[in-house]
């Protein structure tokens, strides 16, 4: 049998692949969406493409994992499990692949072991191939996922993350592969995860050859990004040197930082005498024809910077983080600082912080540190909580060398050695009481959650609850095409929208007038299945927030000294650590805020008693918004 289909065991997969001269292809749709469209490609679009993708006979479709699970609920309002279920109906044979972090899974912070195991068990019902990585290439961080995937009888694909620099030698990576095989056994696929698309084709070819030299039977899956425009070259070199599976994407959606076009890879390798096993090329073309007309609706989410970015070899940002970095630069109004950040500061920070692998969450730490360093003008003067954790070794040991002492001193103060000694080391996270969490979720929802809802909640508590409430209010919105959901500028009067709902019923909505009523409310009229419906909206007064002068960093700090704790920057409250009436000391954590996937503690700078809590869990704060009032102790 040529085709690899769902339900095949790792033995059968390995046997089939080893028995073929050719190579296999993973359609890396999720990574393409994440790298080039800020993860916004909707299930609706993937469902449109599903029949053609199924016909194409890929080894797998990478369709979940990474940040997509979070964006599914946060920005696409689709249940990540329902998404897989619906795609499976359309694609009974193609294996579904995911990408997950060993300790973080699909989130941004380490989860307790029992949460990781529960989540893997639940996702394993839909996901066949599990690509697992750790940004420190620290094998113990991945053990729980390894075990659960193998226990579920699914295909395990551990990664060695790849980067460049004097420390990143073949010897190092071959040794890493050995460490992996030691804990997993031989029955795995091995991924070379080149998330930045770093190195030349020659470098990648050498690496693959070195691994194959030591482990001739190993099946290597090469994953790269086309950020510099040259991933076809690297893929070609990988296959020629023995890689069996490669990652590429549907050409009509390719462009910048994601994987390169599948067909280009096929054409290139064909000249070299390598054929993709079982691939139906006309189905690949058909997929892109289906997708082409959808692309325009996602334009807003494409990178602000058009064109390839060969300087990735300097700044090493992973493809998946390129789009969002530029987005932050635009939103934070520091686009002019980007060359400095990317080409001077980031490589420097990278070197200073141990030249580890720039991938989630390590890439965010590098990026945020570099941005803070440049914008504040005070290098390492405004460390995030995650940077502190990195320096304390909470994520794992530094692979090559520890950052210099002066950084520790800058971040932790004169006592840094003591702090490092007392708090350093891999973070041990205790198991949580899952039944207690289930009850907490039930209370927030007002009904008993499903197992899947619980899993989603355990990873992103507030966003999950928001999403479930959204669905109660707006229904299953995945049925709406991007031409509706991603519409910008509203609809045209008289425009007719047609779609089928989750149950398959056809609906027609005609856009009616939009007018302001006497009491200042806006009324939107829709003709819904031939019934007039009216929707009222209160106009948001523009500028009411903006007109209020924003507090400066110094002002926020001064107020904090007086016990008036304000939001340090634009962020969401993800934890309130104190209660009203509680005594606090200098350094006690009052709350945690989250911005750009990074959590930062808000610590007390005074001794006193918590008088009033103004904020609440999940609240979006602007700089200087009131959070907590502390009655400062006299004297």
């Amino acid at each position, binding site marked *: 049998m040529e085709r690899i289909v769902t339900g095949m065991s790792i033995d059968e997969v390995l046997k089939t692949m080893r028995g073929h001269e050719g190579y296999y292809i993973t359609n890396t749709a999720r990574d393409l969406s994440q790298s080039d469209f800020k993860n916004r490609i909707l299930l609706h679009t993937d469902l449109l493409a599903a029949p053609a993708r199924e016909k194409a006979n890929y080894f797998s479709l990478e369709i979940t994992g990474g940040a997509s699970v979070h964006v599914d609920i946060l920005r696409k309002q689709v249940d990540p499990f329902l998404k897989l279920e619906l795609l499976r109906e359309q694609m009974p044979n193609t294996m579904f692949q995911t990408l997950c972090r060993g300790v973080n899974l699909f989130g941004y912070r380490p989860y307790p072991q029992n949460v990781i195991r529960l989540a893997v068990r639940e996702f394993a019902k839909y996901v066949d191939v599990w690509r697992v990585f750790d940004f420190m290439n620290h094998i113990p961080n991945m053990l729980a996922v390894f075990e659960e995937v193998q226990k579920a009888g699914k295909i395990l694909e551990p990664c060695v993350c790849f980067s460049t620099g004097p420390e990143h030698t073949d010897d190092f990576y071959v040794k890493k592969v050995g460490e992996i095989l030691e804990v997993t056994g031989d029955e795995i696929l091995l991924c070379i995860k080149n998330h930045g698309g770093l190195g030349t084709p020659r470098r990648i070819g050498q690496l693959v050859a070195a691994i194959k030299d030591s482990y001739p039977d190993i099946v290597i899956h090469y994953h790269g990004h086309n950020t510099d425009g040259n991933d076809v070259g690297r893929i070609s070199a990988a296959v020629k040197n023995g890689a069996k599976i490669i990652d590429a994407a549907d050409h009509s959606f390719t462009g910048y930082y994601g994987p390169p076009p599948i067909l280009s890879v096929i054409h290139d390798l064909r000249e070299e005498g390598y054929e993709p096993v079982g691939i139906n090329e006309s189905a690949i073309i058909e997929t892109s024809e289906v997708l082409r007309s959808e692309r325009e609706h996602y334009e807003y989410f494409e990178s602000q910077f058009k064109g390839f970015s060969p300087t990735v070899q300097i700044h090493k940002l992973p493809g998946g983080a390129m789009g969002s970095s530029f987005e932050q630069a635009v939103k934070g109004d520091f686009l002019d600082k980007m060359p400095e950040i990317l080409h001077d500061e980031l490589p420097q920070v990278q070197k200073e912080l141990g030249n580890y692998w720039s991938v989630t969450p390590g890439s965010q730490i590098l990026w945020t540190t570099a941005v803070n360093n440049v914008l504040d003008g005070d290098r390492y003067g405004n460390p995030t909580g995650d940077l502190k954790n990195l320096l304390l070794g909470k994520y794992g040991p530094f692979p090559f060398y520890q950052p210099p002492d002066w950084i520790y001193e800058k971040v932790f103060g004169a006592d840094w050695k003591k702090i490092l000694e007392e708090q350093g080391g891999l973070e041990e996270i205790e198991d949580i009481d899952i039944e207690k969490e289930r009850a907490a979720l039930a209370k927030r929802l007002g009904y008993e959650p499903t197992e899947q809802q619980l899993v989603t909640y355990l990873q992103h508590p507030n966003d999950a609850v928001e999403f479930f409430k959204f669905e109660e209010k707006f229904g299953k919105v995945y049925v709406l095409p991007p031409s509706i959901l991603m519409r910008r500028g509203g609809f045209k009067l008289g425009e007719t929208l047609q779609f089928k709902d989750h149950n398959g019923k056809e609906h027609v909505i005609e856009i009616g007038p939009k007018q302001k009523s006497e009491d200042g409310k806006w009324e939107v009229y829709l003709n819904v*299945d031939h019934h*007039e419906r009216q929707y009222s909206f209160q106009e948001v007064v523009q500028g009411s927030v903006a007109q209020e002068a924003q507090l400066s960093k110094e002002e926020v700090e001064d107020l904090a000294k007086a016990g008036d704790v304000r939001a340090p920057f634009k962020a969401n409250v993800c934890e309130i650590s104190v209660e009203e009436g509680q005594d606090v000391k200098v350094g006690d954590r009052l709350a945690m805020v989250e911005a750009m996937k990074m959590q930062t503690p808000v610590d007390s700078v005074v001794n006193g008693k918590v008088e009033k809590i103004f904020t609440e869990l999940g609240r979006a704060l602007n700089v200087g918004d009131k959070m907590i009032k502390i009655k400062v102790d006299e004297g």
Partner: protein
Amino acid sequence: MKKKILVANRGEIAIRIIRAIQELGYTAVAVYETPDNDALHIRVADEAVWLGDGPRTDYLNIEKVIKAARKVGADAIHPGYGFLAENPDFAKACEDTGITFIGPSSEVISNLGDKVTARRIMAEANIPMVPGTQNLKAGDQGVDEAVAFGAKYGYPIMLKATAGGGGRGIRRVENEDQLRTEVHVARAEAKAAFNNDNVYIEKVVLTPKHVEVQILADAKGKTVHLGSRDCSIQRRNQKLVEIAPSLIEDRKLVDKICDTAVQAAKAANYFNAGTVEFLVDKDMNYYFMEINTRVQVEHTVTEMVTGIDIVRTQIKLALGKELAFNQEDVQIRGFAIEVRVNAEDPQNNFMPEAGKKVTVYRSPGGYGVRLDGFVYQGYTIPEDYDSLLVKMTVFGFSWNETVDRLRRCLANYVITGPKTTIPFYLKLVNDPDFQSGDFDTSFIETHPELIDYDEQGSEVNKLARLIAEIHFEGENKYAI
């Protein structure tokens, strides 16, 4: 000369009466207060007289209404329901000025409006009534009397102030101990409130059905009934849904109730159209409650199942015609349900939604539906009057068919602007107890889930809401 009839009312009932007048070939005259400037009843009437600025004062002003009738040279006045309809002084004023009052005589209205007199008349005619006492004797004697009543008929019982009314001066008593103290309290309270310390006792009929009978009587004393109605579905004594005929399975009992109603009407010397109301308890005992001396809101359901135009008959009877049919000519065919579509928010304790503009109005049509309303698209509901917008009456050959039709018609009814009771009724028609005809006056109390609906509930409406939001915001803020 063409007869002229003044309609001393507003809203849907004014229009209902105007239609009957015009069908008879007579001239219909409307009256109105200032807040009703834009009201439809003025438009459909042949003439209209402005009474004053109101609100709710000029429609109640006997002098002004009579003056208006004289000014236009009206031969008769139809009072509708509410306002002056059951005011014996108004009937008297008509009688005194030689204007025909379309309804019973002022004396009948007066007798039946007084509880004690009405009870006395009915007792003399052997009409079954809720067990009760005369005014309790003064002092401890009265207490003994009350305790003896409690021992005989059981608790709970009601202590009622003789001079009370409209729900005032009523105390529910659960046991003897409570009764011994409450008699004194009730007396003191009645004295303070009504300057009359007379109280009497009535047994409480627990979770009764409200069954009423439509009566027509001509001047010669020929009295017929038009069958029964069930008005058990009420909210705080306000009827919401009315059905004809009653769904009580024992049809002989229903016939008996109807016959009793005719007897009661005769005992009261009744003339014109009226309604005799009964309570029917769980053991199928029935008790006379009162006679309403006017056209009822829910007369439409009776019209649908009998084919008899009650308002037209009222006018003809008042103008001296005899009843043109006998009891045996009255045939009940099929079922009818009326729902009162009110501008109220059921989810906010049925709070009135008056003052709002009807931005979209689309009514259902097709077989078996009748609408008696007065709103139109663009109409702003005045804040000064009751919240009834439209009565939707559906009829069908069987009960199930009628319920199915009601469901369809409610689903096809679109009113936007004010919130209405439509979504509440949609929950109601899907309630198994309602569908099986199993309800009494405790129905709404015991079915709190009826107000637990999501107005935008269906999947497409939820999606449409998001589309409206994207349209309003100009982008999908949930995706950004």
